[in-house]
Every structure is written in C-alpha cells, then in structure tokens.
C-alpha cells in the first residue's frame, strides 16, 4: 500500500484501458446509489487510471478517494478527475483510511459500495463479477479472491506473505465455518448492511482478516468471487518477513479475543 507506483503501472494500466471493451452494466445497478471507495497512499501515477477505469465500468458510479496522508499529488490528481477526495491530515493506515470511505458511504446514503485499491492492482472491469452476488441478494459482502479459482496461479508475492495468507485463510475458514481463500483481499462489494457494519466498526492496520471474521459474527453473508489481480506496479509491498510475523501474531490475537466478544446482530436498515 505504501509504495508509489512506477511508470510500469501507468503503461500497463493504460494499455489495458485502451483495450477495454465497453461493459454492459447490470440493469439492477442503475436504480441504486453506488460509490467506489478508493484508498490511496502516494499513488499519483496510477490514481487517474483507476478513476478512469471505474467510470468506464459504470459512468454512474461516484468515486471517493481517501488520501491517507500522501506526500505526492494523489489528492489533486483525483480531484482533477472529478472524484470526491477525503484528505486525511496524517497517515491513519489502511484500516482507518478505508473506514473513512465507509463512513462517507453510510452518511451519504449509498446503497452499494465497492472497494478498489488506488494502486491499480484491482481491475474495475472485474467488478461485474464481484457485484453479482450482492445485486442478486445472495451476499451482503462479496470479496474478490485471487485463490478461489481452481488451480489459481499467476499471483506472485513474497514467500512470507504467501505463507501468511495461507495460514490466515485456514484459521479464518475454520472459525467461520465456510471456506475462505483470500482473507487479505481489499477488492470487495458491499450492500447497505455491509456499509453500515464497517462504518460503525472496522479493524485497524491490516483489516481484512479481522473484518472477515467480524462479518460472520454479525451474521452477514459473505461470498468469495474468483478474480485475478494485476501485479503490483512499482516497488514491493512494505510488508517484510518480520512484519509479516508481527501482523500474524497481532491478527490472530485480535481474531481470538474477538471471538469472546458478544456481537450485536444488526437489525434491518434503520438509517
């Protein structure tokens, strides 16, 4: 998250953009107020492409970019593209940044929210598939998973990260009683119930794993949808081996302590 993308992403993203086929948006989507939540940290090179691609996917989609204390022109670039921009006064970390977006979606009464990273690794064209279970009413939250497809390949990252993702997926699947393959994916679609839950309570730092467990504890329905993600453009993820271990311990602690909490089951829309 905390890496600035290199020119490689730009070329890559614009190439894909040039070849993008106009997409037929699900007609059910048209009547709903919908917003894309895009957390970004120093992504001035990729944020414009991401916004363009979101608009290409669905022209009626509002875009809110949460600038998590970038030191480059991320916020201005996003504003120039006509996105709503929330400029955080300092870096809150991914959890705090994303939750700001959920609060925005909640307070402005959006029916549907999608979450797409600002670094261009999520291809908005695939939102069709992620949105499908939410629009059908089969899920409150749908998550794009890199590993859900049979024989999923192509996603490469550091070994420690892969191992971490696998362990977390196993633990989380066990706890929630449903197979979950990608607990760290930030490529998601949510209905009003999901927006309300996350606006009210969202974990910090490395939020998706805990959030997955939280979703089940609140009796919301989660579905995974197989997607492919693009290679991260420039640099590497800031997560090193030692940090992976730290995060693992912290996340596992959070999950297990979280299990001993009593959870309020949200009522039907009260807002």
């Amino acid at each position, binding site marked *: 998250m905390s890496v600035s993308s290199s020119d490689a992403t730009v070329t890559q993203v614009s190439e894909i953009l040039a070849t993008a086929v106009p997409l037929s948006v699900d007609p059910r989507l048209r009547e709903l107020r919908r917003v894309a939540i895009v957390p970004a940290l120093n992504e001035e090179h990729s944020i414009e492409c991401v916004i363009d691609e979101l608009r290409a996917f669905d022209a009626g989609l509002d875009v809110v970019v949460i600038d998590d204390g970038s030191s480059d022109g991320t916020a201005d670039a996003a504003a120039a593209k006509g996105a709503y921009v929330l400029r955080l*006064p*300092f870096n809150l970390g991914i959890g705090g940044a994303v939750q700001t977006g959920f609060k925005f979606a909640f307070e402005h009464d959006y029916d549907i929210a999608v979450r797409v990273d600002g670094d261009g690794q999520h291809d908005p064209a695939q939102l069709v598939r992620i949105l499908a279970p939410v629009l059908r009413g089969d899920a409150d939250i749908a998550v794009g998973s890199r590993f859900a497809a049979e024989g999923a390949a192509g996603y490469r990252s550091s070994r420690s990260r892969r191992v971490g993702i696998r362990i977390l997926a196993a633990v989380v699947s066990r706890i929630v009683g449903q197979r979950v393959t990608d607990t760290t994916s930030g490529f998601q679609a949510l209905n009003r119930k999901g927006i309300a839950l996350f606006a009210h309570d969202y974990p*910090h*730092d490395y939020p998706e794993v805990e959030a997955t467990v939280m979703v089940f504890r609140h009796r919301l329905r989660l579905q995974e949808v197989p997607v492919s993600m693009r290679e991260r453009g420039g640099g590497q993820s800031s997560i090193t081996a030692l940090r992976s271990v*730290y995060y693992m*311990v*912290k996340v596992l*602690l*959070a999950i297990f*302590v979280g299990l*001993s*909490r009593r959870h309020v089951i949200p009522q039907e829309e009260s807002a």
Partner: protein
Amino acid sequence: MTPLAVSIAGAVASLALVLVVLDLIRRHRLRERYALLWLATGLVLTALSVWRDGLNTIAGWLGVRSYPPAVLFAVAILFIIAVLLHYSTVISRLSDQNVLLAQKLALLEQELRVRD
C-alpha cells in the same frame, strides 16, 4: 534455588497480568498493537516463575548465586522499561498528530466563517 512461594506468587501475578490484558482487549479498551508487549511481559514472567530450574540456570550464567529470583525482577524491570519507551514514542506521535488536527481545524473553521 528459588523459594517455592516466590515461584507461585510470581506465576499468579504474571498470569493475572495476561488475563487483565486479554480482558481489556476484549472490551475494546486496549488495542492489540499496544497489548502485545504486555502479553509478552506476562508470558515470559510466567514461564520464568514456573520453570524454576530455568531461572536457576539463567541466574548461574549471570553469576547471580545468592538469590536467583533477582533475575526475575531484572527481567520484569527490562520489560517495563521497554513498555515505557514504547509508550513514549506513541505519546510523541499522538502529540504531533494532535497539533496537526488543531491546526487543520482552525484553518477549516476560518474558511467556513469566510463563506458564511
């Protein structure tokens, strides 16, 4: 050899620390991020209290012959120093952020007033 009473008292106190920390997390009064060091403190002290031969061995390495439980105190003090130092860095960051928030708020307020 460590007196049995010291081992028992040490283990009870350290375990109590672990349980209190876990309960604070559960009630959202302590974040995991700030709890890890406390948990490590509690667990290490519990281990050293229960594992009496180990404490003696470590005391031997350090040349503490007369009263091995002194090592227990030394370890506890080390952990407390680590926790305090960690908190000092956290407080420094918070006060920086607080200044930033106040400045930002003042600027926003001024802007809103001008618009009215």
